[in-house]
């Protein structure tokens, strides 16, 4: 039972990093990123590649962060010229291109076979979980700080009206780029966490549809609310794991249950968008007291 709780918490922590990343990009800055798997996979494959080639382990953070930053720059370049729904398409395709490269090039990280035996590096498992939870806490505080800062004000202005932000003297692209880099780094960290926990990385884990699970988690928990992002991840992972229990209990085959999970997620997404797009926890209003110093 304890093992199960530790495992669930670890998975929730991993997804929380992803939803917090998406919240920063979409919830706060209005960047419609349909390609969350790109940065996630970059992190995971940074680990996988290093292990596959038996390179020194300190290369992992360098690859993960370096590639994440590069990917963020590349992906954000079209953002300045494209309408949000078209940029969303581009990000959706972009994540798939990365996956295709990893799938087809066998000498990067094993191609379709993937990389096995990735060392966990932090044992025992509860300690690993604690590390991830700590990372989530850090991410939470960082994004909260951003939300309240002048930087946060500007990215939210960009979200509301890019033209307004520009006519107020801001280089909109520069802000979008910085947000993308931060978001990419967060997601890449989640990817590294994934690789060393599951100890196996293959292209199947990064199918394009997975990005929409993260979207569902964020929209459910509350777009624009960092705590909501974590909440959404927790709720949907719990549903996910419950459906697996139902599978074991009723003896239904794994992929039927997997599909039921997708149906549930899809229904949630539809219902949320139609009836409660702001999710469970609405965006927090920053209230200032008249002539007081605290926020």
């Amino acid at each position: 039972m304890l093992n199960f709780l530790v495992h669930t918490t670890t998975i929730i922590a991993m997804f929380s990093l992803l939803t917090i990343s998406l919240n920063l990009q979409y919830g706060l800055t209005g960047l419609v990123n349909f390609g969350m798997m790109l940065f996630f996979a970059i992190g995971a494959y940074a680990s996988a590649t290093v292990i596959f080639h038996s390179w020194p382990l300190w290369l992992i953070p360098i690859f993960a962060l370096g590639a994440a930053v590069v990917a963020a720059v590349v992906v954000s370049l079209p953002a300045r010229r494209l309408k949000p729904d078209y940029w969303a398409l581009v990000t959706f395709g972009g994540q798939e291109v990365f996956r295709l490269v990893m799938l087809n090039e066998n000498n990067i990280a094993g191609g379709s076979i993937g990389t096995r035996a990735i060392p966990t590096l932090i044992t025992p498992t509860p300690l690993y979980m604690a590390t991830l939870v700590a990372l989530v806490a850090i991410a939470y505080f960082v994004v909260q700080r951003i939300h309240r800062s002048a930087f946060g004000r500007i990215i939210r202005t960009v979200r509301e009206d890019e033209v307004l932000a520009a006519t107020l003297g801001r280089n909109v692209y520069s802000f979008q780029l910085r947000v993308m880099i931060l978001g990419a780094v967060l997601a890449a960290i989640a990817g590294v966490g994934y690789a060393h926990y599951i100890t196996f990385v293959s292209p199947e884990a990064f199918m394009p549809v997975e990005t929409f699970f993260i979207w569902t988690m964020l929209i459910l928990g509350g777009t624009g609310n960092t705590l909501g992002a974590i909440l959404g991840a927790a709720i949907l992972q719990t549903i996910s794991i419950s459906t697996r229990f139902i599978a074991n209990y009723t003896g239904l085959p794994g992929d039927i249950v997997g599909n039921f999970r997708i149906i549930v997620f899809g229904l949630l997404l539809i219902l949320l968008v139609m009836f409660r797009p702001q999710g469970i926890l609405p965006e927090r209003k920053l209230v200032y007291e008249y002539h007081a110093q605290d926020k």
Partner: protein
Amino acid sequence: MLKINDVVKTFDGFTALKGVSLDARPGTITGLIGPNGSGKTTLFNVITGVYAMDSGRVSLFDSPLDTRRPDFVARRGVVRTFQIPRLALRMTVLENLLAAPNDQSGERLRTLFSPGSSVAAEEALLLETAWKMLDFLDLTHLANDWAGTLSGGQLKLLSIGMALMSEPEVLLLDEPVAGVNVALVARILDTLETVRAQQKIIVVIEHNIRVISDICEEVYVMDEGEIIAHGPPQVIREDQNVRRAYLGVKAEG
């Protein structure tokens, strides 16, 4: 002095601006009037970088103004408002004001992670200025409301406030009093006169001829993408070309 020279702008074959020139001096309010579709807002959009001009030159205080991007223009101190006010609706009224002034040190990411007291001091000062502005606009009671809950007139007032927060050299206002109730109109006009007294440059697009006559030293009249007349308000009122352009359009006031 804000000098606009021979600005041409076409959209898909339609020439919206046919070579428009306009001068606006510090310490004056210059009016820009004309029938709907004459190109007034397009002129604003072009000189603030929202649209790219086909040709033309803009200079501010004798140095050329780079109008390729809105943020270039704004950073030279040229701030504008929009006919339909642009605001961050899902931010509070106070936050909108706080977001307005440029180059806050809190906008640099590294200041987030290094506890610098200068950022805190700047924020405190900014807050004070914003509260004062709210007071001035008589919007203090709405400070912590989402901007999206404000009425149209209040939104106009708020956008003017935001424009003023950045202490601009040039204020370009697109219909600042249209649709605003009478008491607020008086406040807005008072504000403009205060800014004028600070020797700033103000250009106002308006339909309300009486307002224009009251506060503008110089008026430019546009019709179909060209300036058809300019001069002091009394002269404009008598101008035959202007009357012809407005035939069919009831002049208010």
